[in-house]
């Protein structure tokens, strides 16, 4: 084979390799785009349902509802706590649907971290989502995908998947601000202890008829919570 023939053959092979590389990259991009991809390997449940449920309800930080609502229900909770999940999923929905949506009540989520060491970064992650108006989406989506209590599931990948699923638009900012919210998580945990709480979820209520934020027994039903709201009005 002459030098010219060898050159021609090598350049044909190179052109074929370029064609193959372009095809492989395109296939990889199509496959990656069509996968769910919320936070890498973490598959979330309930993303659409949570975001639909909370759509149109004002959120300021971790406060759900009109900030001028006369009654405030403060929920002290740990994101890893299964009872908090049950409370949020079973007791709160009718209150949110009625009193919160009509501007009568606002609900504030306050971290009371008692379960394990992942509770603090998880709580801070929720507050960082709250800074972008997606705090309650983060909390409810976390509960939807809550794992076994303090089993180590609430790692970085899980939190990022929740943030993305919750609709946190500026993930770089969310990452940056998470650590800054750690102090606030510790503050609300101290606040819960000062109110005499020892378990989660614990509730307090503030309204025209209360003397500031007053602890109440944790309601076991929406009816009990409605009654407490009425007393505070």
């Amino acid at each position: 084979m002459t030098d010219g023939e060898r050159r021609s053959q090598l350049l044909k092979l190179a052109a074929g390799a370029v064609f193959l590389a372009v095809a492989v990259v395109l296939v990889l991009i199509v496959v990656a785009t069509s996968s769910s991809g919320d936070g890498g390997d973490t598959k979330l449940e309930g993303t659409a349902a949570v975001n639909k449920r909370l759509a149109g309800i004002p959120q300021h930080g971790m406060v759900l509802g009109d900030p001028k609502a006369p009654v405030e229900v403060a929920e002290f909770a740990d994101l890893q706590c299964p009872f908090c999940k049950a409370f949020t999923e079973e007791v709160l929905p009718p209150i949110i649907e009625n009193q919160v949506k009509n501007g009568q009540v606002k609900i504030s989520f306050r971290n009371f971290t008692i379960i394990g060491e992942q509770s603090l970064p998880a709580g801070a992650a929720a507050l960082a989502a709250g800074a972008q108006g997606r705090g309650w989406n983060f909390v409810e989506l976390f509960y939807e995908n809550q794992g076994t209590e303090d089993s180590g599931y609430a790692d970085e990948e899980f939190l990022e998947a929740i943030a993305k699923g919750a609709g946190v638009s500026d993930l770089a900012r969310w990452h940056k601000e998470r650590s800054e919210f750690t102090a606030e998580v510790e503050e609300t945990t101290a606040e819960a202890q000062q109110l005499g709480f020892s378990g989660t979820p614990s509730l307090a209520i503030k309204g025209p008829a209360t003397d500031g934020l007053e602890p109440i027994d944790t309601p076991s039903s929406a009816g009990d919570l409605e009654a407490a709201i009425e007393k505070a009005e």
Partner: protein
Amino acid sequence: MSYPSEGTLQRAIAFLAALGVGVAAYIAISESGGGSPVCLAGGHGCATVAKSSYSHVAGVNIAIFGIFGYLVLLGSAFFANDVARFGGFVVALGGFGYSVFLTYIELFKIEAVCQWCVASAVLMTILFLLNATRLIGYAGTAEALPGRA
């Protein structure tokens, strides 16, 4: 069309491949203990990318593949024959193609950019162009012909 001498291309390829080995080794070492590269300009892009599922293929950190690729490119720069020219081109093409894919993933899937990954992508792009120039300019020649027109 005139090309730079093959010796010049080989030296440039060797220099950039050595830089690439350094960048990929830094990424691999910093992630080996569960950590992440430090973003020199601040931000958390490097941590986000490092902790994403795309940072590993079959359980192996992709930076390890990067080190291997850059080492092959470095080795190819020391020989002036068709095996080295074509081998260097194919490895650089693969590295460039995968860099394009990873950059897409960073921008549109992970939504975070790691400076070290960008540095590697830029190096791999230049290496691809240099190796393509070398192959087109000198394929079929028995040895380096400096300044071949």
